């Protein structure tokens, strides 16, 4: 598959207290249309991605706002937790490939700071298993903490080794003006922050924030006919699932859903990990970023950190979830916007992104080309 991307825009991520969900959708949508030289009338459909709006503001699904704010009437909302954005891109591509639509706007948004931090954390826990894990007092972070401990014990890594991906993300994020946290971190600073769930510290965790990102996909025929400026291409995408509770998995240190989604995306695009020069991994906490790189096929099990040390600029050049902030529904699309922009700028051929819901119950992988 080869779907042209003709428009892209991302709002800055952060605590955007003077903007509501509608404002974010409008800003991202209108600017993406502007960058493509389109108006709302040209767009055949809009796919929105959002994870928690029903719990945060009570307004759900957010796609109804697209009619009010953008004037686009055919709208769908995809709500698959942290993977929502990446899945919306895949579904939009499917709509174009089916011949149903020529121009599709994909827009992800989250408005996390309308809740207090502890309330938002409570909402975000919906992404893990409820019967066994939530019931007994587990959180996304506690489940990743258990994965971290197992990973460190299996591959003989120290707590400080795990911090490298966080330090790298923050270093890369310094130059991204859209990132929420533009400062450097070191091992001492991370270690001196409070425990969330041992061995995960507060400065290991990415923050739930506000933001919206949008891209516009179009059919190859329409792009050629109207001589659109093509920013990049969507070459392949994959979605896969696995059991949500850690207790139902064979291995703690492998996330099968990411491996399966990546295999599907590689198959569709016809390219392999060695062709790829830009990786947006899912660094919600250090271990998820490292496992994400390994399961997408860039390093053997236990060698993920070595890979990042060798290619610090290739991994999370945007700053990743850690430095950019995590506007849950928008993140998958934010990664796409960042990859397309950076492929052109650094003359890299291919880029890949991964987001997963909770501890990997759903994982989505997209591959982009310049």
């Amino acid at each position: 598959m080869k779907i042209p991307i003709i428009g892209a825009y991302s709002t800055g991520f952060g605590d955007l207290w003077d903007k509501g969900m509608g404002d974010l959708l409008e800003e991202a949508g209108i600017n993406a249309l502007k960058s493509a030289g389109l108006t709302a009338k040209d767009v055949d459909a809009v796919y929105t991605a959002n994870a928690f709006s029903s719990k945060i503001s009570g307004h759900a699904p957010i796609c109804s706002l697209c009619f009010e704010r953008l004037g686009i009437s055919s709208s769908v909302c995809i709500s698959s937790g942290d993977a929502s954005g990446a899945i919306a891109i895949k579904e939009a591509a499917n709509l174009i490939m089916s011949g149903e639509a020529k121009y599709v706007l994909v827009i992800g948004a989250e408005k996390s700071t309308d809740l207090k931090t502890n309330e938002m954390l409570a909402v975000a826990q919906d992404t893990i298993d409820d019967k066994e894990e939530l019931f007994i007092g587990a959180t996304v972070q506690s489940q990743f903490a258990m994965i971290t401990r197992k990973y460190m014990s299996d591959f003989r890594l120290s707590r400080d080794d795990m911090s490298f991906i966080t330090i790298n993300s923050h270093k890369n994020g310094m130059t991204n003006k859209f990132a929420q946290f533009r400062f450097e971190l070191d091992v001492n600073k991370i270690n001196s922050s409070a425990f969330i769930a041992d061995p995960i510290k507060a400065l290991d965790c990415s923050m739930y924030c506000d933001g919206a990102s949008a891209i516009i996909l179009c059919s190859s025929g329409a792009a050629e006919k109207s001589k659109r400026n093509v920013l990049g291409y969507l070459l392949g995408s994959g979605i896969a699932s696995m059991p949500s509770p850690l207790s139902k998995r064979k291995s703690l240190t492998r996330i099968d859903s990411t491996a399966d989604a990546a295999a599907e995306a590689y198959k569709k695009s016809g390219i392999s990990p060695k062709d790829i020069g830009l990786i947006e991994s899912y660094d919600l906490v250090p271990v998820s970023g490292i496992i994400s790189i390994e399961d997408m096929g860039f390093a053997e099990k236990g060698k993920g950190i070595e890979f990042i040390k060798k290619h610090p600029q290739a991994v999370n050049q945007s700053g990743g979830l850690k430095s950019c902030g995590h506007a849950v529904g928008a993140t998958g699309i934010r990664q796409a916007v960042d990859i397309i922009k950076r492929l052109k700028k650094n003359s890299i051929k291919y880029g890949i992104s991964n987001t997963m819901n909770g501890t990997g119950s759903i994982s989505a992988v997209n591959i982009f080309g310049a």
Partner: protein
Amino acid sequence: MHRKSSPLMKRDNERNYELARNTGHSNNSITGTIESFTRVYSAPLGFENQAPYILALVSLGNGKKITSQVVDCKEVRIGDKVEPCLRKVYVDGKDGLIHYGTKFRVIK
């Protein structure tokens, strides 16, 4: 933690009590091994007054595993042997139900 309706609680209770049912009967008691663990400091709503508490992924030997709390101890390590016990999990608000479930304790 969201509030459970009575039918939902009834459906869930069977599995929540199942493991702890044989506690104290040495002939047919179940034991498990800690595969990994964490200590939760940032607790979800309803669990704040319990923090910090130990959560572990316990391997029950028959291919089954379970995520649960480990109680009555300060430190655990990967590989520690544990046994199930029935404990209070949380109270559903001021006028809600008290929820019980299976937790684990280290076998000395």
